[in-house]
């Protein structure tokens, strides 16, 4: 029961914020790749930095321990290949999996078609799984799963670096938005 409530509440908040950011709109989402709308980078970087710094502080205060957190295993080849395909799918289809749900709920038929495609892609993968299973564990980096361990530096240093990078993204992004057609608004077609 607790699991149902936490899933529904956290998911609702996630969906609400994505919609408010304009991430149900494929024109806005793909504007990032045309470099005319940097909302995707700005929102993602801010959220990543906020969470990473927040997790670090909560660990320091003893509210949670790092080994309670799920860190995805370092199958870096699989992550790279999968990222490339999801990126291509985003650029062609206009959504990523999560944002297609947001697009659908704001009435977009193309988002419904994208979701059907997601299921078909999963069927295709499952059908080919016996032959391509090795792709899912491709390029394992066995020495570390996380950046601080891999580089032998503290989380604090990584987080400071990410804050600086995020500020850079905002400056560069806002400059490039001014030079181009600019961010897609809720009122543009």
């Amino acid at each position, binding site marked *: 029961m607790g699991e149902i409530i936490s899933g529904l509440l956290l998911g609702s*908040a996630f969906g609400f914020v994505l919609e408010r950011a304009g991430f149900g709109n494929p024109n806005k989402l793909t504007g990032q790749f045309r470099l005319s709308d940097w909302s995707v980078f700005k929102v993602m970087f801010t959220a990543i930095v906020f969470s990473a710094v*927040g997790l670090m502080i909560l660990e320091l205060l003893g509210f949670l321990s790092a080994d309670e957190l799920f860190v995805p295993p370092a199958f870096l080849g699989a992550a790279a290949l*999968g990222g490339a395909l999801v990126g291509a799918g985003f650029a062609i289809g206009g959504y990523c999996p999560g944002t297609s749900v947001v697009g659908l709920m704001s009435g977009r038929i193309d988002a419904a078609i994208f979701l059907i495609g997601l299921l078909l892609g999963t069927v295709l993968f499952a059908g080919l799984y016996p032959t391509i299973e090795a792709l899912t564990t491709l390029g394992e980096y066995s020495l570390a799963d996380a950046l601080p361990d891999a580089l032998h530096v503290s989380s604090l240093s990584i987080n400071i670096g990410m804050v600086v990078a995020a500020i850079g993204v905002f400056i560069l992004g806002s400059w490039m938005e001014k030079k181009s057609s600019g961010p897609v608004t809720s009122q543009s077609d």
Partner: protein
Amino acid sequence: MSVKREIITPEPYWNPLLAGILLGVVLLSTFVITGHGLGATGFTTRLTAWIGMYLAPISTSANDYLGGMVEEGNPLNAWISWQVIGVALGAFISAFLAHRIAFKMDGGKFLGGSKRPITALLGGILAGFGARIAAGCTSGLGLSGAAVLSLAGFTFLGTFFAVGLLVSRFMKEEK
């Protein structure tokens, strides 16, 4: 007598810094409460297994990838299913309150024009297939994986944006 019609214009989107901070609050809360981040394709994979149970029960059970999920009973019985149902509800409430619900085929201007259904389907297939290779999507591996500073998360985001930028060059804009 003419009836005065009020045209309700959609509210503007949130400023990206505000949206990013609030998304960070949601993501951080998810880690604190569940120990893992947010996702999406964990659900669509389970949904595929669930549909397969009805349409093709024998081949779904026999499938090396989906079979395990069917064996446990209802493949949709997982936290991620509730989370994605939540995403749909939250998105609907937000879009409704901001007057942003409109039935339309969107995205054609930049993504194929009249061939928009084809680009949407093809994009979905690529993303669905790719997310299974990486065991995660932009939310599950990119966003949540980077928040715990994982190498896999950063690697995913790197190729995601590089290939997205590149492929985007080949999409023609309709004037």
